[in-house]
């Protein structure tokens, strides 16, 4: 029984790691007021970049770095479209999600089915994700840049009149969100399932987006949320092993989870803690 429980917990932690990484990233850009629904796509390109580097050079460090850079670049594209060109952030984010999945699938053709002979360990990722949650909490609540970031997400006009460069803060936050989504992708293709298959992100990016809402934009609660959803994931796989239920239904599970997350968040009324300027473009002189 104890063994069963421990196994459940370790699996939950490893399921939860990419969720936590990606949602911490999304949390930071949302605290700065920018919505980026493209997490799934950024994760996919990150996963492919990491896998490509790792299988060609066998340098996991470089693989992780490139995954983060690629994720950040993809996010900056979203930033340019929504912050500078002021296109609709939701549509742009959805487009990024699909674009990322498509690009990763296309460029990943030559790796399809390939596996990594020296998988990276999971533990460093998990520990880093947990530590990052604490660091981010400290950053947001006990540093000046953290205050600036939160203020930009709450009332960009107020920050602007005090000399804060709202655009720069938002671009940085978006890039950070992309980098962490890329890192989550790297975890998937280097450690969690050291192989490349098209669509290996399997809806985790969407859950990460929903998780940010579920945990009320708090990095510490994101840890609990990620473990909780990790457990649900684990249970899902256990059920899948034992039952006669068609696998298609299980394939739909992540998306069902998103709905469940949002419903739970609605019940808990955590939307009330959303950054006040979330999803609203800012241009000086227009209020």
């Amino acid at each position: 029984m104890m063994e069963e429980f421990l196994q459940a917990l370790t699996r939950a932690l490893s399921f939860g790691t990419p969720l936590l990484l990606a949602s911490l990233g999304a949390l930071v850009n949302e605290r700065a007021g920018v919505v980026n629904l493209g997490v799934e796509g950024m994760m996919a390109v990150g996963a492919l970049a990491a896998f490509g580097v790792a299988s060609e050079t066998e340098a996991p460090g470089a693989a992780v770095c490139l995954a983060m850079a690629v994720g950040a670049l993809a996010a900056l594209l979203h930033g340019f479209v929504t912050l500078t060109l002021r296109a609709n952030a939701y549509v742009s984010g959805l487009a990024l999600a699909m674009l990322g999945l498509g690009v990763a699938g296309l460029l990943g053709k030559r790796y399809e089915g390939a596996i990594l002979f020296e998988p990276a360990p999971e533990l460093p990722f998990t520990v880093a994700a947990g530590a990052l949650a604490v660091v981010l909490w400290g950053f947001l609540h006990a540093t000046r840049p953290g205050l600036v970031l939160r203020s930009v997400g709450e009332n960009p006009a107020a920050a602007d009149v005090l000399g804060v460069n709202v655009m720069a803060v938002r671009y940085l936050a978006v890039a950070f969100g992309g980098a962490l989504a890329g890192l989550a992708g790297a975890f998937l293709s280097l450690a969690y399932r050291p192989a490349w298959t098209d669509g290996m992100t399997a809806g985790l990016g969407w859950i990460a987006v929903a998780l940010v809402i579920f945990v009320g934009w708090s990095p510490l609660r994101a840890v609990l949320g990620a473990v909780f959803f990790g457990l649900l994931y684990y249970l899902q796989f256990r059920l899948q092993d034992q039952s006669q239920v068609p696998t298609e239904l299980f394939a739909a599970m992540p998306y069902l989870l998103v709905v469940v997350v949002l419903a739970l968040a609605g019940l808990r009324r955590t939307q009330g803690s959303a950054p006040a300027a979330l999803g609203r473009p800012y241009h000086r002189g227009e209020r």
Partner: protein
Amino acid sequence: METSPPLLRLSNITRSFPGVLANDRVSVDFHAGEVHALLGENGAGKTTLMNILYGLHAPDSGELLFEGRPVRVGSPAQALRLGIALVPQHPLLVERHTVAENLALGLRDGLLLTRRRLLAKLRERLADHPLQVDLEARVESLSAGQKQRLEILRALLQGARVLILDEPTSVLTPQEVAPLFQQLAQLKAQGMAILFISHKLDEVLSHADRITVLRAGRKVGELSAREATHEQLVRLMLGREAVPRPRLAPAQPGVRLEVTNLEVRSDRGLPAVRGASFTLAPGEILGIAGVAGSGQGELVEALAGLRPFRGQARLEGEPLEGLSPAQLFARGVAHVPEERRAGTVPAMSVAENLALRTFRTALRRGPWLDRERMERQATELIQAYQIATPGPRAPLRLLSGGNIQRAVLARELAGAPRLLIAVHPTYGVDVGATEQVHRLLIQRAREGMSVLLVTEDLDELFALSHRVAALYQGALRGPWPAGEVDFERLGRMMTQAAEGAA
């Protein structure tokens, strides 16, 4: 005239926007230790001038001289570095953060900002400032006056030497106005140059040292407040004499509206109006005052058919419960909502906005809309209510606030209503439009229309109302005949929990 050189000088500032010359060769001097008022109607160019000072707009031509040196102010941050700070009409604060966090956002020093370090630093720096505030309170829990004090404090912490206040009293209760001007007097004594923008003549006359009057983008006068008179300022502002307001006629006998034990809940499901009862006679204007959020919004929405309520509301004996706004309008209840945007569709044309009440009834031709009649009706209303618009087909959003308000009133009054519910009917509207709105309400009341007037402007309330009442945390105090209460007492009713006479 002045011996010391000005701290800040605007010299021949011109700025145009497409189709409008907002500032036409305006020159003003601001001296240290002086309170300077900028007075003018909506559209006179006050806001543009302020935005130029604050770096939000660049002038097309002309110069800004700070301590005699020409300067460029390209952004609010640059203005702040020069020592020019703005206290905007609607506070630019992060509502969910604490007072301390809002102050810290403007300070440049220190990377690590734990709560304790922040508080210690601020206490040290605020030691010699008389404006005391609770540093750990959340801004959303502060009153409008406290928020304003916080903005002033933040400006001082950033080393402001020129303080610009945009209509500072428009959001304050009467009790908060006097302390504000005391603070400004203190700051003046410390050598600050203070500029405040206003269209309230009395406060300008009693609290400013110098007054600059703008009209249609031009400076039409600069006078010392000691020598200026009320009439003189009105003449300068309007370019004509003020039209005297018609007198209130006594209310007629009978009961038009009877409200008994009205209970209304807010959006959050909390009680917002707690058992309000009052009656309104034909031809009577009942003024209800209250600090924002005291339940007046919910009271109005309940009576206008926008919010469910418990208790009774009867219009000449007929219950109003469960009727939609359209059904209410058909029974003679008109509504001028608080937010002009809530009462209009800015992207649609003036004619369409004027037809919003009648397109399903009078303007209907079979399943279609009689557009010809709609435009004819619009043209008539535009003339009758002197709505300044390029034409009936122009989108409403192009009109100034005063003209949008004229259009709303024109639409609501067109059906000869028996009851008009009007919320802040002159908020943000200039002297000319205010005159007209007041005249309309009084005239219509003379003809028998009842008016429920909800306003924060006590001058307006007393000028227009037969009886006045105050809402305090959802409880209605009063009504009393307007002659039996004064300003001070009604102000206390709006803000204080204990009041014997309630």
